[in-house]
């Protein structure tokens, strides 16, 4: 068995990649989805706020997904559900399993990695205390409430003020729970201001910055948690402990790209993003394997996932349609300074840049009044002012073909963030 393109994951990234790959001329595509329906995590994100960039309107997660699912179905792009990719070899042999076809290995010309991410667990956070029922990642609680229609608890403390935590504070409140407090380890929230106002302030839920959970009580079911303030090294400050009686602790403490399959096939991983190192075509260190969406780096807006995955799908299609031409690559790293933590892509071969390229990045701290500038061989080619930059907000710069053409034989590309 063989396909031109196998897309691992039928969430927003996989769907967008499939559509652009098809539109670029590819027909032999297979989307592999492990759940029982397409759409991925959007199916349980029933709140609104998706699609402002892509569709200029505010959609809920399922509505946003539905538009891309419709795109896949209109094009009759094949997909399999309830199917797990067990292994992927460096030769791009994908081992798939489901109830009807059993275990089979399918060879792919190209692969788009679109497996998304998972939530950081309590164990990874090293929160001490008992291990009773009632400790859920925010996403698990979201599934229980929104898909299954159950209440995982009545009195809730949330650790982590990323958007999922904030959204779940509102969802739990609306469905009838009492959310007592949201604690955030960092001195700032990783969530959108809008979510802080509409998910917490609207319901009088306090947000405690620079606080964490230092103990969990209850042997069978959570009976309470202790929250303490932390110092500048994120260490709890003795004497600041506050006890909260609750039956539920929700954790919204970060997302981790799911790259187990990528690692297995030998894809190089960037330790900062925990996602693959990719070039201008979003191609990983394994030729013909592309990555997009939360498996590549965790996004805050699905619109950018779709855009990025669209680019990966096009690049994968071109890779297949071009046949096996071993074009010589001459990559330069994307350098950065001034508080930038990483860029995607991390390296670029200018001759493969099409009309334009988007370089996405994140900063490591909240910064006000900055200039983001791009330099090619020491010459500033663009700059923009940013009133505020925050770790929770993905940044981007766009570079055009003309800018690269104006710098033939480019040796150095630099993104600089500096104070105004």
């Amino acid at each position: 068995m063989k396909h031109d393109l196998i897309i691992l994951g039928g969430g927003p990234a996989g769907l967008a990649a499939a559509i652009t790959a098809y539109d670029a001329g590819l027909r032999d595509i297979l989307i592999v989805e492990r759940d029982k329906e397409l759409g991925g995590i959007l199916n349980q994100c029933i709140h609104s706020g998706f699609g402002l960039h892509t569709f200029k309107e505010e959609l809920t997660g399922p509505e946003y997904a539905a538009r891309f699912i419709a795109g896949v179905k209109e094009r009759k792009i094949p997909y399999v559900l309830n199917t797990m990719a067990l292994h992927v070899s460096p030769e791009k042999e994908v081992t798939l399993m489901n109830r009807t076809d059993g275990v089979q290995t399918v060879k792919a010309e190209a692969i788009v990695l679109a497996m998304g991410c998972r939530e950081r667990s309590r164990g990874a956070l090293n929160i001490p205390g008992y291990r009773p029922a009632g400790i859920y990642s925010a996403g698990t609680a979201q599934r229980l409430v929104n898909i299954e229609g159950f209440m995982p608890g009545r009195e809730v403390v949330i650790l982590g003020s990323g958007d999922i935590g904030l959204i779940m504070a509102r969802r739990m409140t609306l469905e009838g729970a009492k959310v007592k407090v949201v604690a955030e380890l960092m001195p700032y929230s990783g969530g959108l201001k809008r979510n802080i106002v509409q998910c917490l302030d609207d319901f009088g839920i306090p947000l405690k910055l620079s606080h964490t959970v230092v103990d969990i009580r209850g042997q069978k079911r959570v009976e309470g948690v202790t929250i303490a303030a932390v110092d500048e090294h994120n260490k709890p400050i003795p004497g600041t402990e506050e006890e909260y009686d609750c039956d539920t602790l929700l954790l919204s403490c970060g997302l981790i790209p799911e790259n187990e399959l990528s690692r297995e096939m030998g894809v190089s991983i960037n330790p900062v993003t925990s996602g693959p190192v990719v070039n201008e075509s979003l191609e990983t260190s394994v030729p013909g394997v592309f990555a997009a969406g939360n498996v590549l780096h965790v996004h805050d807006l699905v619109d950018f996932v779709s855009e990025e995955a669209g680019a990966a799908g096009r690049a994968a299609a071109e890779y297949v349609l071009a046949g096996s031409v071993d074009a010589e690559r001459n990559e330069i790293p994307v350098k950065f300074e001034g508080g930038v933590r990483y860029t995607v892509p991390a390296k670029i071969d200018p001759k493969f840049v099409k009309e334009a390229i988007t370089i996405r990045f994140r900063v490591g701290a909240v910064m006000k009044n900055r200039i983001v500038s791009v330099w090619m061989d020491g010459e500033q080619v663009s700059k923009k002012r940013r009133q505020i930059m925050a770790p929770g907000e993905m940044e981007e710069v766009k570079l055009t073909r003309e800018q690269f053409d104006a710098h033939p034989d480019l040796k150095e590309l630099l993104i600089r963030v500096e104070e105004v």
Partner: protein
Amino acid sequence: MEKIQLICIGCPMGCPMTVEMEDGKVLSVTGNTCKRGDIYARKEVTAPTRVVTSTVRIEGSETGAVTVPCKTKSDIPKKDIFNCMQELTGVTVKAPVHIGDVLVENVAGTGVDVIATKDIQ
């Protein structure tokens, strides 16, 4: 005269804004950095609204779904959020349901319908 403190939701800046009001009329908005802040503040202090999203029960789904997600078709007054939730309680619809199907008409007397946000077979 009444002073109301607000945080702008327009962007990550989160400008702390002060709105001065008298007799339900906005006299001034200060603290904002851009026009969006001014518009948001005036609406938020006079007629705050929200889109409410939730789920209702569904029966007879081929795929085994037990809930269908839904939303108010447009924003409703903030004060009616819990009334809206109360009215969604106990609502059960029959599959199939399509995106945009009206599940509850004129929810909580707001004049706004609650519609399905997912196709459920």
